[in-house]
């Protein structure tokens, strides 16, 4: 028993590990909550692209000597703006637009870095995260951004659900569809920004997509899916961080793989429970039903 206790508690004798724990728990709560909508709206690729796009903002922030969080936020908002602008043209489909915006900002970041030696040295911190070096200031900014995101999702919950389930009904009911879509883009930006130092920009998609997908397998309503995604996200963040301490592995990658482990478990459980593919499940529905009373 004491072995388990020490295994869990010992890493957190260190202050940097306690700060790191707060950092990953925050990401583990915020990203999956946003991720539920990303997964249901088939925008998983957006999370990945948004991570890459932040490279330009982070590189610029390094050059300017300002917080990389601010830089990443700027790049994310630029990404959201480019997507919003290009999707107004009916012949440009969203997936292509996301790719265009991503490559523009990622290439800009690589271009800046290729001209500067200082940044190249610190590049792997940005790409793969370095949560154990997170400062109290960064943690505070992330907590504020995270709280804003959670609050916005909570307030817009019903409207988001209506928009995602039946966009035409949402529009007829007077929901401001375009504003809500832009809001969700900004939510993805914030989720990616606060996960930069935890899992890095290359894997910021992990916490957006993996816990939400696992939750999707386990639940049948939006509220439960959101709750399950946050629980899986926070549990895999804490477990992954602890594991990385003992394995001396990169925290971001360890957390991402822990979340994938949760997804595999959810996949196996639900496969066995149903024992059939979704197509077969659909075919099993009764062809007729009792007449109306």
């Amino acid at each position: 028993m004491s072995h388990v206790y020490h295994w869990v508690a010992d890493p957190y004798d260190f202050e940097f590990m306690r700060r790191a724990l707060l950092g990953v728990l925050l990401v583990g709560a915020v990203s999956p909550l946003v991720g539920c909508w990303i997964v249901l709206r088939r925008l998983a690729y957006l999370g990945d692209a948004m991570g890459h796009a932040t490279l330009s903002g982070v590189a610029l922030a390094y050059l300017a000597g300002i917080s990389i969080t601010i830089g990443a936020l700027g790049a994310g908002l630029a990404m959201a703006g480019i997507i919003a602008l290009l999707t107004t043209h009916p012949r440009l489909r969203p997936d292509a637009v996301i790719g265009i915006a991503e490559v523009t900002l990622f290439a800009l970041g690589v271009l800046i870095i290729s001209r500067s030696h200082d940044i190249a040295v610190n590049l792997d911190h940005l790409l793969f995260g370095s949560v154990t070096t997170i400062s109290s200031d960064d943690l505070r900014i992330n907590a504020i951004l995270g709280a804003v995101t959670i609050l916005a999702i909570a307030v817009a919950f019903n409207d988001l659900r209506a928009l995602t389930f039946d966009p035409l009904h949402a529009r007829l009911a007077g929901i401001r569809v375009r504003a809500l879509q832009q809001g969700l883009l900004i939510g993805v930006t914030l989720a990616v920004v606060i996960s930069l130092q935890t899992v890095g920009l290359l894997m910021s998609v992990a916490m957006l997509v993996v816990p939400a997908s696992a939750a999707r397998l386990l639940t049948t309503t939006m509220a439960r899916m959101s709750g399950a995604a946050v629980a899986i996200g926070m549990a895999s963040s804490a477990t992954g961080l602890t594991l990385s301490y003992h394995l001396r592995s990169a925290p971001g990658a360890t957390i991402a793989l822990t979340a994938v482990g949760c997804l595999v478990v959810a996949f196996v459980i639900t496969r066995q429970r149903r024992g059939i593919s979704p197509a077969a499940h659909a075919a099993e529905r009764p062809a007729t039903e009792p007449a109306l009373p």
Partner: protein
Amino acid sequence: MHGQLGEPALTIEGLGVRYGAVVALEDVSCSVAEGELVALVGPNGAGKSTLLRAVLGLVPYDGAIAIHRHDGGALGRAAVAYVPQRLDVELDFPIAVAQLVLDGRLPFRRFGRPLTTADRQAVWRAVARVGLDGLESRPIGALSGGQLQRALLARALAQQAGLLLLDEPLAGVDAPTADALIDLLQRLASDGTAIVVCTHDLALVRTRFERAIGLNRRLIADGDPGAMLEGNALEHFFAAP
């Protein structure tokens, strides 16, 4: 049909819709009274969906559309309820029947406003009305086709609109389910709701509807479906517009 028909619920005069150079509807005039159940029939591309879209304010149009004898929109978006084709919604979305029906209250629920007693009562009544009571917490992925169609209808009922538009509600459901759905629509009409049903199913229109509006870019026929479908109006239906 059900005693006296009420005041006009929907009046369309000289309606024209074009998509670029393509004329989708031209000079269509008709009206539907409170308590009336009307089938809107015509071949593919006849403009049935376009007519619904014009009434809903989704496409620009020429002519006049009046709802409850006011200009479209005068009574707000809640005055018309729309039931989409069952296959237009994602069948496996994580949403339960009660939440789906609650979305019918969205026109009244401004951003973030909590549920009111009126919301709850409207949902409860709508669910009971379509005979889905007891299934409120069932995910829509576990409903049969006919049950899902009724759930979508309940969402429209929760909106408590005077005018109900249904797009192909009879497509892909078996005969007993279609019959039960029309029984339900007739009961709703007898309570004073004006209902317009888009459909391909001419056989069902002939046996179950007392009025049909035939559309093929223009108004082809309007009246008793039996007489309409036996006469040469039928040939107009399937003639090139």
